[in-house]
């Protein structure tokens, strides 16, 4: 089987996991002058036009800037819907929304829209094309890593065909069940929410006007995010049992269940693309780094997608790591050395742990039908809404414009 045993290829950066974060890292690192070997267990992403499958992302303003810096934005922008306003409402099915409402309008933010809604297929296609065209990147997919070890000043991964790839640094971008983290001996903490996200896209009669809505329902939040045309992306969080029930329904039954929460403000709705379910939970790796290993994206932290921050946080990891690596390279430092990795960990782990705790608290506060909590959060939302300064701070945070911004996100 191991016909290619003993064959070793050397590079600077080995990335395991060719999803959006792994691909973005490959592109950004290659632009910084590093040689990159990108390994993905899944077959190569399609570079051609595909039908919409229902998956979309709310990209924060900072993430859009990063795509622009990587020359990906131009091909994505024509399919991106700017998010002009966000309306947050505390709702309870049958009762309609409470009078307290949070309203974020991009007119209050000098940088423009807080973010854009981008379909997964457009993002993947742009990245796939860019990966194929970028010199300095070897992209192998499918390719499965079966072992990894640290040898003096190199990290070496073994593929299932017996070949070995050595590099100065190995980056695990391989998700919540990261094999890279496990092989490096990095443990992780996790909390389940007992909730499942039902994700889909709908077509509706009336224009959405670029307004995103978040309804806080007792079972979990319902996010309605505007896509191009008369379409919206839906992230509907429900208690596990109820979610399983809804997921098992046919499309007509699903829409019937969605309608009371969704309301009628956009007129008639129908499904476009497939429906997806994701169990919600929060995971945090005990460390984002180990000897010659760094973790990014869900391999480092999986946050509740309540605020659409999963991909945004992953891209922020990518941008921070590339800053650290580019700086180390300019100085002639070892890019996989303990000092460079400590800088990445110091930059990102605190940020992420803060986000995880904030998202967790937010969700616990809002996914609750306790009348006292409901009164408290209604007053809180009213207070935030009444104070323009505080409201702008929330918006800047959601747009990813706060904190120590990596250079790719500075625009």
């Amino acid at each position, binding site marked *: 089987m191991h016909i290619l045993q003993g064959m070793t290829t050397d590079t600077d950066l080995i990335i395991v996991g060719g999803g959006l974060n792994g691909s973005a890292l490959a592109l950004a690192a290659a632009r*910084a002058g590093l040689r990159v070997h990108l390994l993905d267990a899944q077959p190569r992403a399609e570079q051609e036009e595909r039908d919409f499958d229902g998956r979309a992302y709310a990209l924060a303003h900072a993430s859009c800037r990063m795509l622009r810096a990587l020359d990906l934005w131009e091909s994505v922008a024509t399919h991106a819907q700017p998010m002009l306003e966000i309306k947050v409402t505390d709702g309870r099915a049958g009762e309609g929304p409470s009078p307290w409402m949070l309203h974020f309008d991009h007119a209050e933010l000098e940088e423009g829209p807080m973010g854009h809604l981008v379909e997964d297929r457009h993002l993947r296609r742009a990245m796939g094309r860019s990966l194929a065209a970028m010199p300095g990147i070897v992209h192998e997919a499918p390719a499965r890593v079966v072992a990894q070890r640290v040898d003096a000043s190199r990290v070496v991964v073994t593929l299932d065909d017996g070949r070995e790839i050595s590099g100065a640094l190995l980056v695990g971008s391989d998700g919540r069940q990261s094999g890279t983290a496990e092989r490096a001996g990095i443990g992780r903490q996790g909390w389940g929410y007992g909730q499942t996200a039902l994700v889909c896209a709908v077509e509706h009669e009336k224009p959405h006007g670029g307004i995103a809505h978040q309804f806080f329902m007792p079972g979990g939040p319902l996010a309605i995010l505007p896509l191009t045309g008369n379409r919206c992306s839906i992230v509907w969080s429900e208690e596990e049992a109820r979610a399983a029930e809804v997921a098992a329904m046919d499309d007509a039954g699903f829409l019937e269940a969605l309608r009371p929460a969704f309301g009628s403000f956009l007129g008639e709705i129908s499904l476009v693309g497939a429906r997806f379910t994701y169990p919600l939970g929060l995971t945090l790796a005990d460390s984002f780094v180990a000897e010659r290993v760094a973790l990014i994206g869900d391999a480092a932290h999986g946050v509740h997608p309540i605020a659409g921050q999963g991909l945004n946080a992953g891209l922020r990891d990518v941008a921070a790591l590339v800053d650290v690596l580019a700086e180390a390279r300019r100085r*002639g430092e*070892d890019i996989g050395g303990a000092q460079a990795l400590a800088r990445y960990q110091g930059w990102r782990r605190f940020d992420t742990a803060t986000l995880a705790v904030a998202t967790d608290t937010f969700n616990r506060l809002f996914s609750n039908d306790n009348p006292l909590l409901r009164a408290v959060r209604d007053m809180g939302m009213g207070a935030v809404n009444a104070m323009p300064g505080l409201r702008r701070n929330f918006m800047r945070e959601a747009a990813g414009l706060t904190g120590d911004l990596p250079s790719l996100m500075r625009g």
Partner: protein
Amino acid sequence: MSDLSPAAPTSTIDAGEIAKFEAMAAEWWDLEGKFKPLHMLNPTRLDYITNQIAAEFGRDLDAPAPFEGLRILDIGCGGGLLCEPMARLGATIVGVDAAPRNIPVAQIHAEQSGLTIDYRVGTAEDMAADGEQFDVVLNMEVVEHVADPLAYLTACQQLLKPGGLHICSTINRNPKSFAMAIVGAEYVMRWLPKGTHEWNKFITPDELFDLMRQAGLNPVDRKGFKFNPLGWSWSISDRDLSVNYVTASLKP
């Protein structure tokens, strides 16, 4: 290769100084070990060095192997904390150290890192006597340890090709530097073994500029290396040269 030993009569290194550093040699590459303060300062030193070399020789640090074709000497190379980065940037690098025990430590580490570095036991004076010539001489945290700074800086000047760049860092002499470098680093934090520094050998920036001019070097820049106790990190300062500082000078 130089066959001169540190005991050569031309040496200006105190015998006592060499013994002190020999005792510290084995732990060079331990980030949390005895050389932690040097590892902490190293990125900031490298920022200064790489930017000065890039500016002087018109190199682009974002290009692959930007220092290719440059011959660089690191005096007092220790375990190779500066030599290895220079080698990664493509330079032809010679590391020289008066303490023989540092050399095998540095050689072993360079080999592990897959880098080619010419390490030698010796002093600046030995190298100058051999007629060696370099584009850049790195003279970092050495001058405060030598017995005759003018003779030493003259040797550094002789080692440069015309137009060559000399980068020299050291510690200022004032009550603050005494408190920080000796009381703080050696006695309170125990970052460095007691007796690493003798305060009366410290040199002020103006004195160093005078010495360099006497040695035939044109001083062109001076900056502070400033320790930030809140961020626990170092940075380059335009104004604060009160403790650690660095200079650039050119051979006409």
